[in-house]
């Protein structure tokens, strides 16, 4: 869809202004997915794209494509709130975040910023300041988080492209629950300049889109280079053990239906999650300690209490977690000697209800806000690249997969995802196809 929209604009058959206007009209306040509508900027940028086309200048591969960003990307002229009311009066950003700049340099048009968990600390997009983002497939349900507004905007057809960030699953969880594609790149490979940090050991930016072709196009723009051409078919295995437990029967059946013969296990995944949890708490708490000392009561209470406890984690505990991280990365590397792509659930169940934001783990009800990353957190803990891919389930609530590769092998992820999409096993379902800006 994105390439088609851009081609229409580049050929002069459709104006960027008309796309921006359609995107502005498509914003649905009822989803609580948008925090700031940037109509003036969008229309000005769109007019600039159209002016280039009129004078024979190619605006780029994303010409006129409307997009939005999670509320933690710098947008020139606006404060970067990172989802917190206490940041609304901060000085405005001088320039766009580098990832935003790369998209706009390719012709894309920024239209909105999106709701997130405060300071990205959560998997639910329940934000006491900005609201709770609703799942476009069922507004009584959560969108997932922390990039829930970005995922919901694509799932609802408001925008064909948004950016989020992923520390422990904040792209993959909402992509799964909203039924869209998301990418968490190899850690440290996409530009983080101008993105409010949460846990720099794990933070990455990543896009949400509606097809694997769109994901490839946007990823190549963000990285500034095309992926290498495919040289062989990826060797694929399912992840068993931890990743086969706490999975709903319908998801287990769907994974079985992928026809993957090999199954492998990562050892000590529970400890990997524990180590990621500790490092996240410590780094996040330390980052926000100056504000916690000065104005603790200005935080969302649930975020605040987690951050304070995290700031009390001693350095010796972090050292234990970091030592384990090295060991765990070696275990994963051993699996990738025989397989290129590992398949696991992104979430174990469909989106929880807003009125009952819990999930079931080992028979107990636990908060979705802290536990929806059950399957994602151990993977980003060691920086692996992941495509979050929606199982094609028309008429049913979305469920997503993680397609996981070793660092730097996003090409293998795209090769396998493209094959799954061609086979009709993954892909987006309504409501995205009702998009008012679709061709």
């Amino acid at each position, binding site marked *: 869809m994105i390439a088609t929209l851009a081609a229409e604009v580049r050929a002069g058959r459709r104006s960027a202004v008309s796309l921006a206007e359609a995107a502005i009209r498509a914003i649905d306040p009822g989803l609580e997915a948008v925090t700031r509508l940037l109509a003036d900027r969008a229309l000005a940028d769109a007019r600039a794209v159209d002016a280039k086309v009129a004078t024979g200048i190619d605006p780029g591969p994303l010409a006129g494509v409307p997009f939005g960003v999670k509320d933690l990307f710098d947008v020139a002229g606006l404060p970067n709130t990172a989802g917190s009311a206490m940041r609304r009066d901060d000085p405005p950003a001088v320039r766009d975040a580098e990832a935003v700049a790369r998209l706009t340099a390719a012709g894309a048009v920024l239209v909105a910023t999106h709701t997130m968990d405060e300071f990205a600390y959560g998997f639910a997009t329940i934000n006491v300041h900005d609201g709770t983002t609703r799942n476009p497939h069922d507004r009584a349900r959560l969108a997932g988080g922390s990039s829930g507004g970005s995922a919901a905007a694509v799932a609802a057809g408001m925008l064909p492209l948004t950016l989020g960030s992923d520390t422990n699953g904040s792209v993959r969880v909402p992509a799964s629950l909203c039924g869209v594609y998301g990418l968490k790149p190899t850690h440290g490979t996409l530009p983080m300049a101008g993105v409010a940090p949460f846990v720099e050991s794990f933070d990455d930016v990543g896009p949400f889109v509606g097809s694997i072709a769109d994901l490839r196009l946007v990823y190549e723009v963000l990285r500034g280079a095309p992926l290498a051409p495919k040289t062989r078919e990826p060797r694929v295995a399912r992840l068993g053990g931890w990743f086969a437990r706490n999975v709903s029967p319908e998801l287990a059946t769907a994974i079985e239906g992928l026809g993957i013969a090999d199954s492998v296990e990562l*050892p*000590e995944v*529970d*400890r990997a999650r*524990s*180590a990621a*949890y*500790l490092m996240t*708490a410590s780094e996040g708490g330390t980052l926000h*300690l100056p504000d*916690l*000392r000065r104005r*603790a*009561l200005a935080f969302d*209470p*649930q975020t*605040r*209490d*987690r951050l*304070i*406890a*995290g*700031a*009390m*984690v*001693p350095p*010796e*505990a972090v050292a*234990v*977690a970091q030592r*384990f991280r090295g*060991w765990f990365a070696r275990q994963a590397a051993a699996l990738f000697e025989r397989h290129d792509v590992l398949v696991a659930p992104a979430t174990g169940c469909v989106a929880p209800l807003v009125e009952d934001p819990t999930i079931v783990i080992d028979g107990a009800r636990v908060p979705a806000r802290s536990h929806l990353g059950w399957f994602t957190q151990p993977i980003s803990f060691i920086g692996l690249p992941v495509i979050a891919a929606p199982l094609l389930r028309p008429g049913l609530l979305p469920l997503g997969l993680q397609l996981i590769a070793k660092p730097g092998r996003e090409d293998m992820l795209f090769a396998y995802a493209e094959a799954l999409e061609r086979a009709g096993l993954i892909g987006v379902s309504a409501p995205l196809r009702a998009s008012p800006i679709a061709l």
Partner: protein
Amino acid sequence: MDETAPDIAFLTPEAIGLELPAECVPGVDANLRLLADHLERLRSFDPETA
């Protein structure tokens, strides 16, 4: 697990320069218990037997 390893104590609010508001105490305590569980799980790890 190294049985001789010293306990690892969490820091106090005073040690991090924080005057803990009363309304934060229950939530912070609950989160500290959770973090202590995670730390204990990690400290019981023995790569030799994993």
